[in-house]
């Protein structure tokens, strides 16, 4: 049994990663909660965001945190366009079709990235990349600490948008009662695309916060997509608070799993949680039985 | 033939079945009536294994079938139809009916032959090769009946097979139901169309808010004070009686 001096840093590391996972999962759960579809291209779109941040940094010298002003809005537009132009037209009444179409999109996006950027691992070099913060005797990389608080602030901002703005009200109305919302004059296609755009914008934010302490390759999204699904399922499909807590739990499970089982086997813990939750509590840990 | 004893079921705080006890005798058409939301379909779902009752038991042909799976109950000779029709869309009428026929027929040829025979019996003989999705509401209702009939059941539970049909369509279907009874199959039906209940069924059970409030022949039921009140509201029975008194 490793002692506290190893467990505590590992735990804190898990929490910082978990907050980012939560932000990524928030985007997914927002899309699920409103459109009732599962966006399989979520990981691939995160990868697009990461490349955008990398590109802005290496070619134009823009700091990843400054890119927060550029990348999330651009991702929003991308998401809006994808939903309106492709995803929204593909279901033919079966939700599996959406899954197939978003799977197809993720394959296209990933392989285009492979074509343009090749499979090299890319990182950004910032002055603060190797700075650390001491907390509870553990030294945490500064970018991860910033990411942790950035993710929490973004989640709070998203919550404000959803609860206080007209857009948020329209989104919630249409999520609950599509026909009724359309009758009172809400344009469903527009609101759906706005929700999808918001969900993808979350990925833009996550990309800016993530890259200073991480890397990007064309297949980097793989690792995130099932993790995000696991969090969404764990927290209860469509639940905001659930996604936040679920993200933190998964971050910690991954960190401790890696510590006790080794890097490779540690990942299994997440998939096993995913399978078990879907089998036994598909309504999520916090959800109510339907 | 079918005995339901003390069935209780609630969803959250809503009690859909309250201590329901009733029997369906062999060889007759028995009906289950009651206002909307009185728990008729929920009761059917519990009888046929789609829902598990919280308490109570269902006996069919002397065997306790409470909590059995729907397919196990169907194999024992009790099948149901659905109020909201559930065709296998994309398959032809013949293929739809053959699914039922396969219950006791392993051979594809036998099942298809049986499907054709049943289709003629319910008046779908001219639409055998049409996609089930292209049928009218009346056609789909007939398809529900045909599929159930093709399983060679001993007891059929019809869940509002006449709902949504116009008067002339109802007139066409009533002989089909009577013919099924004539062939020795017992029928237990939920029905809203009172005309059909009166002309078809020999005995009725009335459900209101999950409870059996009356039973008897249809003629007795329609004059039952509790039944009239359940359907039309408090005090109606008295007013109707008064009015009839004046006219008499």
């Amino acid at each position, binding site marked *: 049994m490793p002692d506290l001096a190893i467990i505590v840093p590992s735990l804190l590391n898990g929490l910082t990663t978990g907050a980012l996972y939560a932000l990524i999962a928030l985007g997914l759960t927002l899309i699920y909660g409103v459109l009732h579809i*599962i966006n399989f291209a979520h990981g691939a779109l995160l990868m697009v965001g990461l490349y955008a941040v990398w590109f802005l940094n290496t070619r134009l010298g823009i700091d990843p945190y400054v890119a927060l002003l550029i990348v999330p809005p651009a991702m929003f537009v991308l998401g809006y366009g994808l939903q309106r132009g492709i995803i929204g037209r593909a279901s033919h009444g079966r939700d599996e*079709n959406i*899954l197939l179409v978003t799977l197809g999109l993720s394959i296209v996006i990933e*392989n*285009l990235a492979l074509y343009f950027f090749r499979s090299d691992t890319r990182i950004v070099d910032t002055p603060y990349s190797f700075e650390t913060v001491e907390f509870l005797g553990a030294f945490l990389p500064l970018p991860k600490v910033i990411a942790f608080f950035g993710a929490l602030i973004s989640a709070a901002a998203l919550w404000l948008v959803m609860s206080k703005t007209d857009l948020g009200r329209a989104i919630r109305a249409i999520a609950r009662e599509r026909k009724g919302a359309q009758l009172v004059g809400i344009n469903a296609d527009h609101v759906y695309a706005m929700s999808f755009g918001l969900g993808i914008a979350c990925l833009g934010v996550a990309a800016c916060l993530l890259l200073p302490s991480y890397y990007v390759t*064309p297949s980097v999204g793989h690792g995130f997509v099932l993790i995000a699904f696991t969090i969404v399922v764990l927290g209860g499909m469509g639940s905001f608070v659930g996604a936040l807590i679920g993200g933190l739990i998964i971050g910690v499970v991954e960190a401790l799993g890696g510590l006790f089982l080794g890097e490779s086997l540690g990942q299994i813990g997440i*998939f096993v949680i995913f*399978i078990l939750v879907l089998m036994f509590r598909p309504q999520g840990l916090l959800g109510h039985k339907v | 033939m079918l005995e339901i004893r003390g069935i209780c079921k609630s969803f959250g705080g809503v009690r859909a079945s309250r201590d329901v006890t009733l029997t369906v005798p062999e060889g007759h058409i028995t009906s289950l009536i009651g206002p909307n939301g009185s728990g008729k379909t929920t009761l059917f779902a519990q009888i046929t294994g789609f829902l598990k009752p919280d308490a109570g038991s269902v006996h069919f042909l002397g065997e306790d079938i409470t909590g059995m799976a729907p397919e196990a109950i169907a194999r024992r000779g009790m099948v149901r139809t659905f109020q909201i029709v559930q065709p296998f869309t994309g398959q032809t009428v013949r293929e739809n009916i053959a699914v039922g026929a396969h219950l006791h027929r392993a051979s594809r040829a036998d099942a298809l032959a049986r499907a054709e025979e049943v289709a003629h019996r319910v008046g779908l003989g001219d639409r055998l090769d049409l996609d089930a999705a292209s049928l009218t509401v009346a056609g789909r209702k007939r398809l529900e009946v045909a599929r159930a009939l093709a399983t060679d059941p001993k007891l059929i539970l019809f869940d509002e097979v006449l709902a949504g049909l116009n008067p002339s369509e109802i007139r066409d279907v009533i002989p089909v139901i009577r013919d099924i009874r004539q062939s020795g199959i017992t029928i237990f039906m939920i029905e809203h169309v009172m005309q059909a209940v009166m002309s078809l069924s020999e005995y009725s059970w009335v459900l209101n808010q999950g409870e059996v409030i009356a039973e008897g022949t249809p003629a007795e039921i329609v004059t039952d004070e509790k039944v009239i009140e359940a359907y039309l509201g408090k005090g109606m029975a008295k007013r109707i009686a008064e009015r009839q008194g004046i006219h008499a």
Partner: protein
Amino acid sequence: MRQLVILAVVFAFIAAAPAIITSEFTQNVIIMVLYAALLGQAWNILGGYGGQFSFGHAAYFGTGAYTVAVLQVQLGVNPWIGLVIGALFSMAVAAFIGFATFRYGLRGSYFALVTLAFAEVLRILSNSVGFTGAGVGILIPLAPGAANMQFETKTGFFFLIWVLTLSSFLVVWWIGHSRFGASLAAVRDNEDAARALGVNAFRVKMGAIMLSGLFSGLAGIFYAQYFLYLDPYIAYGPAISVESLLVPIIGGMGTLFGPLLGAAALHVVSEATRELIGDVPGISLALYGALLVVMVMFMPRGLAGLLARLGVRRRAASGEMPRA
């Protein structure tokens, strides 16, 4: 019966290919088309006929492939025996995954995601344990000879995959003309209605996933013997799962000939892009993805559906009434 005749003619025609075509390159293309058709037909049983969309068919493929490879390398078991054991193992994995998902009523997108998760678990496991060669992979030593299922000419592999693929098509033909198939289609189209008519939905879905896993496993076994190398990413990675579903979706889900059409079309597309653009990483897969999107959006019934529609139109033009 008509379908069985067409099937016999098509496969007899394919069987004549090695006698006519002597080019190793073309023979290899035909072998890979048959192999893809087998992979797709396996998925088609569960996805097309059963309506259960699996995103993790690599679980069965990889199990078949690893079983035959590991048995040879670690225990010296002959691959022909390995074929039988590998097929059974694939079926057992399918039975396990089927039990875990169908028992708990997972459907639609949830089923798809859970199957993907199972395949990923197997990928990580095969990457972490020693007897599979872990991340380095496993190399089947060269031992040419039909007795070792390592044929000296392409023709030998051709007839092996021909037999395997034909057997999958015969099983699917049987599905289309049996009580099992009728029950499976009924469960696909409306599970509640099927159960009300006495169909044991759980048992039918279990049957479908096990048959599906069996043929997927056979494809994996063929792959292992043909290429003599496996690693966790090849065997259990998402590429195989995607190819498994792409083939029948392009060709036409729930149809007998869909997987063959899809496999052929996919190879035509990938060969054509290789001719036009060259062997650039990413492009042919990007095209696969785009095809998937386009098919689901605009041709949900696949090439087989397109052909059927053309057939109906032609018959209508010649004054003959289409059947149904």
